[in-house]
């Protein structure tokens, strides 16, 4: 290990042998889980996928009646939830290859596409490869500040960062677009390292995704709502929804007020304005669902690496890094969020960001199961295990974003080695840890 790194790093106290031991222990957890994958795991992902699709259908159906306030709220909530599930627990994890072992072409990283603005191809490169390989290495991991923010005091300040609380707000609302543009690697384009043909390909990809989202959420389904309401209104001879006065008849010259035409216009008068309102309110509902999803994913993603507890690394520190050191960097470069099982599903199990970074290809459901083992390793080797409640993590992330908008700033104090706390349920955890320890060769720690 690099001398420089030893001085300040949270693993300076470990000997090379210990790091080698650690590597084996981490490898073994992966192996144990992979040997055990089977029907139970498949059933889980299949049921999440089916729940997500049913929610999406429920949302779309409820929004056919988007003129009713209750229906609008319920439909938007269903759709927003479906979109969150689709992006987080399904899309992100499938594209990591977590479910490739099933050999099922319908749930496979090579074929999956998701309902967001960045193409699967670009995202797999920038996220799976760049971010997960070079996690928290300044200047290499582009997810550190997403090239527009200063989130580590080691990044040099520039006046443009003064506005970063504002960028952040915009990014929150438009997160999926932010990610899409980020995938393009603006930095490389600026340095003219990226061939224009690639840039063109990216733009084509993003505009394809944009078109799909516009057609579906902002034209297609609003139109379906409008047609449905229009049809109901016609069938009920205008009694379904009381039209507000927007009489088309008045627009016509007097000569047009003959009988058939007049009746037609009468009907249009009753139907068209209502259909138009249905179109607009469904469109608004879909936009709201996208917004909900964006704000939520932004919150979860930012809590993964930017809370105070996490460590960042310089490129020199990570030169010639061994596999064990890679594990260690993943361990201290990520931070967990504590929460209920439902919270973990809704966050794509990224509340287990630490476990996810150690094992990006492991089915997400297993993170909760291996967390005690990871903690146990941390305890035994005196390593930090970063975690905190959602509000706390989110708070420290945004405090950093505000503080580092201005020059200066010091690294916040980091947690010490992990210690089991009083309120961590001892029975289940203890037995899990001791069972695990029993299987491990005696360690020198």
């Amino acid at each position, binding site marked *: 290990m690099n001398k420089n790194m030893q001085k300040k790093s949270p693993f300076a106290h470990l000997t090379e042998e210990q790091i080698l031991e650690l590597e084996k222990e981490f490898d073994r957890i992966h192996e144990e889980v992979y040997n055990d994958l089977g029907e139970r795991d*498949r*059933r889980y992902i299949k049921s999440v996928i089916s729940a997500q699709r049913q929610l999406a259908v429920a949302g779309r159906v409820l929004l056919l009646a988007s003129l009713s306030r209750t229906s609008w709220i319920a439909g938007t909530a269903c759709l927003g939830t479906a979109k969150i599930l689709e992006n987080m627990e399904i899309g992100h994890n499938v594209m990591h*290859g977590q479910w490739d*072992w*099933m050999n*099922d*072409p319908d749930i496979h990283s090579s074929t999956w*596409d998701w*309902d967001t603005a960045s193409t699967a191809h670009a995202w797999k490169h920038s996220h799976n490869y760049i971010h997960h390989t070079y996690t928290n290495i300044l200047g290499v991991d582009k997810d550190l500040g997403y090239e527009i923010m200063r989130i580590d005091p080691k990044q040099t300040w520039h006046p443009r960062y003064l506005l970063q609380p504002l960028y952040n707000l915009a990014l929150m609302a438009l997160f999926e677009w932010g990610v899409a543009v980020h995938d393009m690697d603006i930095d490389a384009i600026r340095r003219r390292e990226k061939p224009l043909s690639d840039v063109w390909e990216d733009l084509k990809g993003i505009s394809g995704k944009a078109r799909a989202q516009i057609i579906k959420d902002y034209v*297609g389904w609003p139109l379906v709502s409008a047609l449905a309401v229009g049809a109901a209104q016609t069938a009920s001879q205008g009694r379904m929804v009381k039209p507000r006065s927007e009489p088309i008849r008045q627009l016509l010259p007097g000569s047009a007020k003959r009988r058939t035409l007049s009746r037609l216009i009468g009907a249009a008068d009753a139907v068209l304005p209502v259909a138009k309102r249905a179109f607009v309110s469904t469109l608004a509902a879909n936009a709201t669902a996208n917004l909900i999803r964006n704000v939520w994913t932004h919150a979860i993603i930012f809590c993964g690496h930017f809370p105070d507890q996490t460590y960042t690394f310089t490129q020199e520190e990570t030169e010639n890094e061994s596999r064990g050191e890679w594990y260690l960097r993943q361990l201290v470069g990520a931070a967990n969020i504590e929460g209920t099982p439902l919270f973990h599903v809704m966050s794509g199990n990224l509340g287990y960001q630490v476990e996810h970074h150690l094992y990006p290809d492991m089915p997400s459901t297993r993170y909760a199961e291996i967390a005690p083992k990871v903690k146990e390793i941390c305890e035994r080797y005196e390593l930090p295990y970063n975690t905190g409640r959602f509000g706390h993590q989110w708070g420290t992330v945004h405090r950093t974003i505000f503080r580092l908008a201005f020059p200066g700033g010091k690294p916040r104090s980091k947690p010490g080695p992990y210690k089991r706390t009083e309120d961590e349920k001892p029975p289940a955890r203890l037995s899990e840890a001791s069972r695990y320890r029993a299987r491990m060769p005696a360690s020198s720690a």
Partner: protein
Amino acid sequence: MAERGAEPEVHPVRRRALRAVRHLFSPLLPDDYLELINPLWTTKELRGRVEKIEWQGSQAVTVSIMPGFNWPGHKPGQYIRLGVLINGRFHWRAYSLTSDPEPEDGLISLSPKVVESGTVSPYLVHRITPGTIVRLGEIEGVFTLPDPLPEKMLFISAGSGITPIISMLRSLDHRQEVNDVVIVHSAHKADEVMFGDVLKDLDDRYPGFRLHLRITEHDSLFTVDQLDDVCPDWREREAFCSGPGEMTDSFLDHFEENGLSDHIHYERFQPVIGGQGKGGAGGKVHLTHSKVTAECDGDTPILEVGEEAGVKMPYGCRIGVCHTCVGTLLSGQIRDLRSGEVGGSKGDTIRTCVNTAEGDIAIGL
């Protein structure tokens, strides 16, 4: 990429209707939602529902399947890839179709024999239940009945090698064309004979059908020397041979020595991997997309070489039938592990599961 079933024959109106609304569902397809109601309704791939399972001798079963969409039909003697879910994973294997190509009940069937050390056949023989949904792949195979039908035919089979032949016989029966047929079938034990009753029944009904059943537990193995005794006019017959590799090889040689190689039909159903190919040169395998170079000993499939080097290689069947594992050959020569043949030129798509490197090669994978 994981292997997928064959594209089904779907009514054009249905296809067009699905296409028309697909933008409302992107990035999914309407199929992804229809599938929630009934997994057979997806038009992405052909699937089937297992209807019944019947014992076929003491070690094999016949699995009858109702396909979700119109069954395109097969030529008697062909095989199909079947995808089944075992403990959360899809496994693919090729099996001969044993059903009549024009089945009256619409069911297709295949008849796996158990290989206890295997994964798929024990599942099919012991565990699969009616109602299970399976994936159906392409229909393949060149071991089929010729058109027009030859006047006189001779079938030589052993063990589960009878399966493609049963489909041929059923088709002949269906067409009332069982005129002059000799079949020599060997099985190890009497209770292991697959389709014993079907063969009996044909024997009873058609005077031109002659059945020689050999139980190798007692009788000697059927070899080329006995051909003249069992079937003196074999030279006038069109022969169909299906069974273990050595058996097929010996009959092939025999027919060739007699200048009759056009008269024998056969299929190497299960490719022999690593068998014949011994002693190749080997070389470096360069996987260009993954930027990995690995040493290959000339006996290991490129697929395994890549996997051992830590690359996520695409594969499906791993025995050379599904074409999931293909990559483009960018340079060098490869050796087919089944035939030992050396070949390949730049730009060929090659199957990594049944080919090995012959000297240094580069593949776009």
